[in-house]
Each structure stands twice: as structure tokens, then as C-alpha cells.
């Protein structure tokens, strides 16, 4: 028996098998910002349904359903605050919102997050999770690949840390742009990360894929990411990385060297 409260206390990690469940922006912000304190930023309005797209369902209906389900306006949510005392802007891609898909809104959110990070001289931390580009916005969703890459460039030019945490699942145009451009790339254990989805690859090569293919540990073994970090350790690890990259001056705790320099020359 698994109780919701236990899961929540354990940051949505299964206490028996350690499986990291998918979580949304609220849980991320609560777990990462100091005392959970943060300010969400208002994101720019974008063209609604620019292609008047309709498959079996209207795109506008899908949007409405996702809004009702998640209580969020769109797939990417941005907040700022401090992580262990260091300023950070955190953008979280919400897989529960139309598979986290990247359309105009997600693109604008990441650009806004980057601009805020530059303005506040803060780090930008992006939690990626998406099936890919939002097909219902057609070519305009594809154009979010260069647009979000520009967002990364803005942060990089300001010499601020850009850290990506790849969460389950991240594929398609999202990995082929900002999600694989982190100065430091972290993945959560077991997260599926790739360009093509496993089903597409199986259909192409007509073979079953090996166990663990495209999982976080596979990416680490192939040199595609820097580390796999357990959700419980994530905040401490992010803090440590930001601290080192920003070369934050901290009072020395190590014991000073025993012999002063002049003693060495005198002898």
C-alpha cells in the first residue's frame, strides 16, 4: 500500500523501488527554493491556435482540458527566488500539460526566464520534460528550437550558469534545442531522454530496443550528460554547482597550512 502523503513527503519517489514519479512545477519550486519561497512571473500572451488546428479534437479544446486538469495556463512555468541563498530563475516544463509540448507559449516562457536571469544576474535552471514540439502549432512550434536556443545564448553571454535537469521523459525538438545545451546537464534516475522516441526507433529498425536504452544512466555512460542525481540530492547538488560556478566567496573552513612561508625560506 502506498499512501499519497508518504509519496509527497518522499518528493514523489516510490519508497520501495525508488522510481521517480513525474512531478509538476509546484512540487519542484517547493523542493528547491529556500523555504519553498518563490515568485512566479507572468508570462507573455501568445497567438492562440495560429493554425486553427483540428485533429480528432480541436486544439483549443485540448488546451482548455489541460488547463482544467493542471490548473496551469501553459506547459512551462517560471519562478524566481533563492537556492541556498543564491539567486535562481527556475523554469519547469510540466509533462501533465499536453505532454509538456513546446509551442509559442513554452518558447516565450523560456525567453522570459532567460531575460529575467540576465536582469537579476541569477542562474537559469530548466527542468525539461516533453514529448517534443507541439504539433498543433505546426512550423511555429519548430521555430521554438532556434528561439529557445537564443534564450540560452542570452544567459551564456551574461556568463551566468545555465543548468538543465532532464526529467522523465524529454524527447524530440526539446532535446534538440535548449534541453541538451546546458553548461551542466543533470538527469534524474531512470529518466527517458532522447531525440526520437523509442517507438519510432523500433518501427524504423524493426528490432526491440535493449533494456535501459535512452535512460539517464545510458546517457551518462555515452557521455551525453554530466551526472545522474537522485531527487533527494538534487537541491544540494544544484547549490554546490552554482556555488562553484559563481565562485561565491565563503569563509574558509579548512585548517590553514602549518608552516608559514617565511619559515620555509629561513631554514
Amino acid at each position, binding site marked *: 500500500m502506498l499512501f499519497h502523503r508518504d509519496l509527497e513527503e518522499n518528493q514523489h519517489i516510490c519508497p520501495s523501488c525508488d522510481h521517480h514519479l513525474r512531478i509538476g512545477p509546484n512540487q519542484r519550486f517547493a523542493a528547491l527554493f529556500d523555504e519553498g519561497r518563490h515568485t512566479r512571473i507572468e508570462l507573455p*500572451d*501568445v*497567438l492562440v491556435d*495560429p*493554425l486553427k*488546428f*483540428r*485533429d*480528432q479534437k480541436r486544439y483549443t479544446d485540448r488546451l482548455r482540458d489541460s488547463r482544467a486538469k493542471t490548473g496551469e495556463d501553459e506547459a512551462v512555468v517560471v519562478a524566481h527566488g533563492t537556492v541556498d541563498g543564491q539567486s535562481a530563475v527556475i523554469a519547469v516544463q510540466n509533462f501533465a500539460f499536453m505532454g509538456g509540448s513546446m509551442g*509559442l507559449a513554452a*518558447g516565450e516562457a523560456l*525567453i522570459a526566464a532567460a531575460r529575467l536571469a540576465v536582469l537579476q544576474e541569477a542562474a537559469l535552471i530548466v527542468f525539461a520534460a516533453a514529448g517534443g*514540439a507541439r*504539433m*498543433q*502549432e*505546426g*512550423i*511555429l*512550434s*519548430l*521555430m521554438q*528550437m*532556434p*528561439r529557445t*536556443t*537564443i534564450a*540560452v*545564448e542570452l544567459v551564456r553571454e551574461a556568463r551566468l550558469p545555465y543548468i538543465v535537469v532532464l526529467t522523465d521523459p524529454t524527447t*524530440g*525538438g526539446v*532535446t*534538440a*534545442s*535548449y*534541453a*541538451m*545545451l546546458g553548461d551542466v546537464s543533470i538527469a534524474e534516475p531512470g529518466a527517458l531522454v*532522447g*531525440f*526520437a522516441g523509442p517507438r*519510432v*526507433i523500433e518501427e*524504423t*529498425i524493426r528490432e526491440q*530496443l535493449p533494456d535501459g*536504452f*535512452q535512460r539517464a544512466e545510458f546517457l551518462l555512460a*555515452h*557521455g*551525453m550528460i554530466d551526472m545522474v542525481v537522485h531527487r533527494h540530492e538534487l537541491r544540494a547538488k544544484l547549490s554546490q554547482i552554482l556555488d562553484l560556478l559563481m565562485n561565491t566567496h565563503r569563509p574558509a573552513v579548512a585548517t590553514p597550512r602549518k608552516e608559514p612561508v617565511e619559515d620555509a625560506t629561513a631554514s
Partner: protein
Amino acid sequence: MSTFLDFEKPVAELEGKIKELRHSADGGDVNISDELGKLEAKVDQVLKQIYGKLSPWQKIQVARHPDRPHFSNYIETLFEDFVELCGDRAHGNDTALVGGIARFRGRSVFVIGHEKGSGTDGRVRHNFGMAHPEGYRKTTRLMNLANHYNLPVLTFVDTPGAYPGVEAEERGQSEAIARSIEASLRLEVPFVASIVGEGGSGGAVALATADRVLMLEHAVYSVISPEGCASILWRSAARAQDAADALKLTAEDLLALKVIDQVVDEPLGAAHRHPTTAIRALGDEIERTLLQLISEQSGSRRLRRREKFLAMGRA
């Protein structure tokens, strides 16, 4: 042997008649020129009718036509002194993405393009124009060289998409594409991209984050193939025609959305009927665009390109 598409059937029939007529008159002194002229005029008229109102799905068939000019044809017709540069300096040399230095209308340029290959062997050799990570890494390398030597970059986009395979994933397909986009955005030299056939998703945008994007009249450019889109959203690949309509992937649609800068007309009956004419016409527009970009002197080209993409899709 020419390949006729389904909707080109009336043309195939007329051309069959023309062939027959020529054959029967061969050696004889029957005057067939009147009849021949009539039939040829009819072919033009039918082509005009068909090609004047192609559906998006039909455009996809045209864009994928096996006789449509490929990158190697553009190289032969438009460039002199092409020196191919190979390899990503890490793993291998991709054959679906070809690039090098060449002279374009008297000017040194870097030229990079997807090569789909011709004939069964050729298509296999070039992996049907679907590049592996080393192709995108080669692209990044060539773009950096172009910047270093202050030479323009010209690209030709024609790919179903980046290759979805085990090794491609192992070697970081997504990172390779992302770096190619990043390298494109860092160029300080003029960059003109031409979508000449299929502009398939991330594998296409990796070569199309350009100052100006030109597109042939019957080329397509899309976030996903209509077949892929249909199998996800309609749960049936058989609905690809509906997906093709919904995705707005024709040159005309993309111009209206301001994602591309110019549509370049194709000869009557599309580029596969008159490859050289089509290639030269595109060459003229590339030259005109390039000269225009070169004449823009003030400020950073990189920042202007950035502003162009940032403005895209904004209300």
C-alpha cells in the same frame, strides 16, 4: 524512365500518345507536327491545371519525387571548384549531409546540404538524406570555419528528418542538432538557406536558422511528417492527408506565417520536369539575396538574425 505521380496520370497518358505518335512516324514522311503541337500544348495546359492547385498532400509527393533535383545537382549546376570537406573529427563522416567550400557566382562560400541520393544504391549510400549526429557536427564545424574565414554560408535543405536509430541516439543526435542551431545563431557572416525538397523537422531547422530562408514553390517544411502526425493525433497513419492539411506546411502557408522569406517559383510541372531551369532560378534568387545581405553593413548580423527569430510568431 520518368516517374509519374498518381495525380499526373493525365500527363502520363498524353506523353504516352506523343511517344507513340513519334514512334509511328519514325522514318515515314507523314507530317505529324500539327498533331504533336496540339498534344504538347495539351500537356502544358493539363500541367498548369494540376500544378496550379496542388493540395498539401500532393505537394508532399512532389517534394519527395525521386527525380527532384538533389544537392549534388545543385552543386554541379550552381557551384564551381567544389571541395568537399568530410568528417566531424570525432566519429565519422556522414553521407546524408554533405558540405564544403566552393565558388558561387564568383564568390567563395561554404555550402552544406542534405543529399538523398539517386537510385537504390545511391539512396542507401546517403541514408535517404537522414543524417546521423556526425552530419550535424560536421555542419557545426563548417559553420565555424565559415565564420573564421568570413565567408557566407549557403545551405540546401532536403531531408525526411534526422535519422531515428540506436547509434544516432548513442552518439547524441539531439545534442548534435542543438549545437548546429547554436552555431547558426553565432554566425557573423551572411547565411542563406533554401528549402528545396522536404524540410523535415529538427533535421531541417539545424540547417535553416538563417538570415533568409528561401523555399521552392512545391517544397514542404514541417515540424513532423504528416504520417507521423496522423499516427499520433489521429491514431492512424492513413489520415496523413488530413494531417498534411492541418500542419500548414506549404511554401505559401509558411510565407504567410513569416517563417520563410521568399517563395521561388518552379518551372511548369515542378522541378523534376525541368531540373536545370529550377536550379538556375533558385541560384538567381540566392545570389540576389546574398548580395542584399552583403550590402547590409551596419551592426551585428548575428543580432539581426536573433531579432528575426525572436519576432517570429509574435502577435
